[in-house]
């Protein structure tokens, strides 16, 4: 027969064991549930909820006719329902295996971040410097070693776009705080 201390020890051990098993279960479920698909579906669900809540600010009917909130509420409620369905379905889906076509997530992220910075620089720096710098930097990463080609393309493309948009189409692009064209 176990004494009190040992008994307490076993109980503590049982609790710790249970906690350990629970933690492992949560970790497994977390890794199973938190995938790109569920995160994206969850993000869409949040956006749908926000849209629907905002849609309820507008009148559903005005003078007996559909008001500004009529169509958005229908769309919003449909979106919330569909997103919930997809989120639950994706959460219940087995995690995709690592075997499959090679993906270049780091390159994609880098390219997207570079693109975002370019879009911001497009307004601040001005179109032409931003295009030149973006192409030069991106090509030097993607097209390594071909410095002549990279400089040539980085110079030719802004000139071509200047002729196309500024000169032919008369659609000026942002000059930014660096005014190259008086």
């Amino acid at each position, binding site marked *: 027969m176990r004494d009190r201390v040992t008994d307490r020890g076993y109980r503590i051990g049982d609790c710790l064991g249970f906690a350990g098993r629970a933690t492992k279960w949560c970790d497994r479920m977390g890794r199973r549930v938190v995938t790109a698909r569920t995160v994206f579906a969850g993000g869409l669900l949040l956006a749908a909820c926000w849209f629907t809540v905002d849609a309820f600010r507008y009148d559903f009917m005005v003078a007996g006719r559909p008001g500004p909130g009529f169509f958005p509420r229908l769309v919003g409620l449909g979106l919330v329902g569909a997103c919930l369905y997809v989120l639950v379905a994706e959460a219940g889906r087995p995690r995709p295996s690592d075997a499959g076509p090679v*993906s270049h997530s780091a390159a994609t992220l880098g390219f997207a971040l570079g693109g975002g910075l370019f879009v911001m620089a497009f307004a601040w720096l001005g179109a032409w410097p931003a295009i030149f710098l973006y192409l030069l930097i991106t090509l030097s990463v993607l097209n390594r070693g071909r410095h002549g080609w990279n400089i040539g393309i980085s110079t030719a493309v802004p000139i071509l776009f200047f002729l196309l948009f500024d000169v032919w189409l008369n659609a000026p692009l942002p000059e930014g705080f660096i005014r190259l064209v008086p």
Partner: protein
Amino acid sequence: MEVLSNLAAGFALVLTPANLWYLLVGVTVGMVIGAFPGLGPTAGIAILLPLTFAMDAISAIVMLAGIYYATMYGATITAILINTPGASSVVASTFDGYPLAQQGRAGPALVMQAAASFVGGTVGIVLLTVLAPVFSQVARSFGPPEFFLIVMLGVLTLAVMIGEHRMKGLISALLGFALAAVGLDIGTGQQRMTFGSPELMGGIGFIPVAIGLFGVGEVLHAVQRGDHTRRVRPEGLLVRGTFWPSTREWAESRFTLARGSVIGFLLGIVPGAGATIASFMAYAVEKAVSRNPDRFGKGAMPGLVAPEAANNAASSGAMIPLLSLGIPGSASTAVLLGAFIMWGLRPGPLLLTESPDFAWALIASMYVGNVILVLLCVGAIPVFVAVIRVPFRILAPVILVLCTVGAYSVNGSMLDTGIMFAAGVLGFYMKQLGYSPAALVVALVLGPLAENTLQQSLIISDGSPLIFVTRPVSAAITAFIVLILLGSVVVRRARVVRRPATAPDAVR
């Protein structure tokens, strides 16, 4: 006879030096865009649309329409030579096109695809010429309930039939409707979700969204796939031996051309079906009626001819709902519709009577463009081969720059550029995770029409939704929608039953 005189007037407008030049530019650019995997007709039209602001409406639409149907020609070049279809509508062409190239018969394959595209396109345009006025006449009897249901038919078909998963396609379409709700409510003038921004009062423009989804999104998707690391293998691009198909190949393809063209045109008319379904259907039919079905997939010329004739005929067929109803059947025709509206045109039952010059010039330009394309296709293959050897790692940043500049030039607004980039990131994830960017764009363009016609229908019926089943035409369209939804359920269930039990699909 009236059709012929209208068509003659259309030719008179198109056969001017300026319009012929724009047509040549449009079809050439379209072939180049189609040849690059990752950039499809939607991105091409959306990105180049701002360039047409300085032109008159007829010149602009002649050029943009040229891009639209020329991409089908160009997309097949890479499909045959390097087994990389430039658009989903030419995937079926790879089944036999690439094996033919591997057998050293790339030359005959390219010539046959040019011929098939020309025949399919011409049959489609002739049928368009004859049927567009008929459809317009029928559509004049349509009221708001019928238009609302046709919008739903187009959007649901695209979302439910084409996409990987029905619910994700539905989410994509509802997202498009949600984006379309931003701006001023037409009925009351109240601002919706504008955050006090005067730029958003006009709503979220479809051009930046289309450029983002199909331009930036596709580039990101291609980088994720690793296209920037690949080199185009030169041996895949060599056209060896005789360039001309044999007499036997011409003979065995003659009925295939007719079948593929008719199937393509009929499926092209259905909003949402489009060239992709048409090409697969034509391939399946051809294989089913063939005396030697085992040859298919191993370099059978009819296996290339059928989908090529179908996808080009479908691009003409898709013009019927666009011109006569104002309902686009695909993302690319949705962008074309947006362009029409921007120039103050009203695609719909009255287009052929209110703006006959425009409509018949467009149809006439398709005849001329088709002839130019078959000559370009056969004569300029080496040029396109050189073009597609440009590494994607150089093209990718240039495309992003072009997208940014194009989005900005629409309204001179950095907000549009930001929307374009955000749509690009959204489009990347949508494509990666099985959603439908095409359904989003179509819903965005059709959202205002859907909302207005729904409201008008409920006003007419004093709030009763039964109006959609009590009017005869509405009831027929409703029944067709239900049929399509049920059909998609049956087809998916059949696929799941046929698939091994180890690969269940969670989302339906």
